[in-house]
């Protein structure tokens, strides 16, 4: 936990907590939904703020590094959607499981990977969280299964993780995320059926940011009520720009699963400021005005900041100090990520198999061989 420095006011000056009205969720096959009020303590608020701000700065730094060609290949940024991964993370336990698709940097951080290891993975260095072997779309840590490149494939995987949770009666759940684009994948409907049939503790979460690459939801889906598309699976539609809304909805969903009621589906309505990836400017299929409107009216970090300041949970100066600390952390992480060496060539052959005696792997011709250790 970070120590928050208070500039000129004492702790006694702030409220310890405040209650907020949050948007009611649309419900599908549910008699009641999550609470429409949320209590947030000062500590929680500061934690949510710092986490979201860290993700925001990390993503903007990645944008910079990509334009400098220090990050290569695919880079799908999460800025604008911070309230989703943070709201989800604070409503589950570290022993619960999370799997998502390729827009994964925010989740990777929320699940515990330090910024420097994320950035170093993006720059392909040996200090990256998977030694530079994975890149942007393939980052993992304990109880976080990536980072998956094939649209929709992570959904059956998530249900499988949920099956493992149920198999040993561990009372854990798996958050299985996908986007509005992926929501039309056949394997997701196969998974809905399997999860409901076998009552798997799987929370399906559709992060609807209105666009699947360059295709708006209206042009891709016959029904854009993603929270209803699980049909026989109960669903809720959540304001994904409000971290408290996401938190309360997730708590509700988690309770549903832990009670053995089977899967549940949450649609988080959110927005990404960047295009689909760094090679998409993001303005050919949507207007700058639209992006600007979301930024000025619905930015998740601004929303939280205003709530905290207006309810005496924190001061503007205090939050500015957090901003400074976050920027410093990101700069240091970027410094590490640009100076750490690339993985040694010997790494090329490693980790083909798990728990296997060393063997040789063929290179580009028959005379070039690499050793493979597990």
């Amino acid at each position: 936990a970070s120590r928050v420095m208070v500039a000129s006011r004492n702790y006694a000056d702030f409220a310890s907590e405040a209650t907020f009205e949050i948007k009611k969720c649309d419900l599908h096959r549910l008699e009641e939904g999550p609470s429409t009020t949320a209590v947030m303590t000062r500590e929680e608020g500061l934690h949510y703020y710092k986490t979201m701000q860290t993700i925001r700065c990390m993503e903007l730094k990645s944008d910079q590094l990509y334009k400098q060609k220090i990050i290569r290949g695919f880079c799908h940024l999460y800025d604008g959607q911070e309230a989703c991964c943070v709201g989800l993370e604070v409503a589950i336990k570290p022993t619960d499981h999370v799997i998502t698709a390729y827009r994964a940097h925010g989740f990777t951080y929320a699940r515990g990977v330090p910024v420097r290891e994320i950035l170093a993975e993006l720059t392909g260095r040996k200090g990256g969280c998977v030694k530079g072997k994975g890149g942007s779309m393939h980052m993992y840590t304990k109880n976080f299964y990536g980072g998956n490149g094939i649209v929709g494939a992570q959904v059956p995987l998530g249900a499988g993780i949920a099956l493992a949770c149920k198999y040993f009666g561990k009372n854990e759940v798996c958050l299985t995320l996908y986007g509005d684009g992926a929501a039309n994948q056949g394997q997701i409907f196969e998974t809905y059926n399997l999860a409901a049939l076998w009552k798997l503790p799987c929370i399906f979460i559709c992060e609807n940011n209105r666009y699947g690459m360059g295709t708006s939801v209206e042009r891709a889906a016959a029904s854009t009520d993603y929270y209803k598309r699980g049909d026989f699976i109960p669903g809720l539609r959540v304001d994904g720009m409000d971290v408290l809304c996401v938190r309360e909805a997730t708590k509700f969903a988690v309770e549903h699963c832990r009670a053995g009621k089977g899967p549940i589906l949450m649609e988080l309505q959110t927005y990404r400021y960047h295009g689909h990836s760094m090679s998409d400017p993001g303005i050919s299929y949507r207007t700058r005005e639209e992006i600007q409107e979301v930024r000025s009216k619905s930015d998740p970090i601004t929303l939280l900041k205003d709530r905290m300041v207006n309810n005496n949970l924190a001061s503007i100066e205090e939050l500015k100090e957090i901003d400074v600390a976050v920027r410093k952390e990101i700069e240091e992480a970027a410094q590490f990520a640009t100076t750490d060496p690339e993985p040694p060539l010997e790494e090329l052959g490693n980790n083909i198999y798990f728990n296997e005696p060393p063997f040789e792997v063929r290179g580009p011709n028959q005379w070039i061989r690499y050793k493979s250790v597990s």
Partner: protein
Amino acid sequence: QVTVRDALNQALDEELERDERVFLLGEEVAQYDGAYKISRGLWKKYGDKRVIDTPISEMGFAGIAVGAAMVWLRPVCEFMTFNFSMQAIDQVINSAAKTCYMSAGSISVPIVFRGPNGASAGVGAQHSQCFAAWYGHCPGLKVVSPWSSEDAKGLLKASIRDDNPVVMLENELLYGVPFEMTEQAQSKDFVVPIGKAKIERQGTHVTLVSHSRPVGHCLEAAAVLAKEGVECEVINLRTIRPMDIEMVEASVVKTNHLVTVEGGWPQFGVGAEICARIMEGSAFNYLDAPAVRVTGADVPMPYAKILEDNCIPQVKDIIFAVKKTLNV
């Protein structure tokens, strides 16, 4: 004498008993006792938690099996035939095979995908494809192809105990075939090591390399040729990936002639790989004639019996190829 079916059944039974993390899922594996009765009696013995019937959703249940394997379970995922695995091939390759490498070893996927592969009898083009070459192509996977009951039992047990994704290509026409099994092979800890071939018959004039059902055809061809004074060395690959090319090389050094035999299509197949590797290795200089391949015909499998019979490598085709390469 034990049939391949019973050998597989024993292997599943023993491994389900040995490790509670092992479970079997697939279409009809539980209450139907298995589409080909491989899992007969197992649901009755182990129940719903360990033997799971799935709806017809290959991509869904294969993905679920891989997800479960990424956590702490050891699934055996049955494809009713490997033709249906094409529905789920993304989960086998992108989710199972590559994950250990992409995660720098932090996630392992100890899963077995098994089921009948290749031609059967009169089942038509969509149900007769051999997937040895497709799966054998991919790093991160292990691919095994048993012939005898000993192979079937030992390789299935080894595959289940392996911490990596293994594709086990069985053969429907072999399920009912009985083989001798030694005392040792019938013990509960008998495993056949993955990555090691076996010499089924010693010989001096030509090396026949094969996998799965064609191994039997090679032995029949060898018996016929022996009467004419040609002694064939028959190698049963047992594993497609990682392939035991060293054993093939040692044999070619001895016999100076090589014929590969497989059920799959010729282009980019198992035989093509063997030939390429022999060229690259020490055995090339010992070849007295170019290596020869006997394969399935390069067409989708037709239905009429006369046509189908001529699309798979028969004993006469192997004999002809041997005589051609020996120039007799």
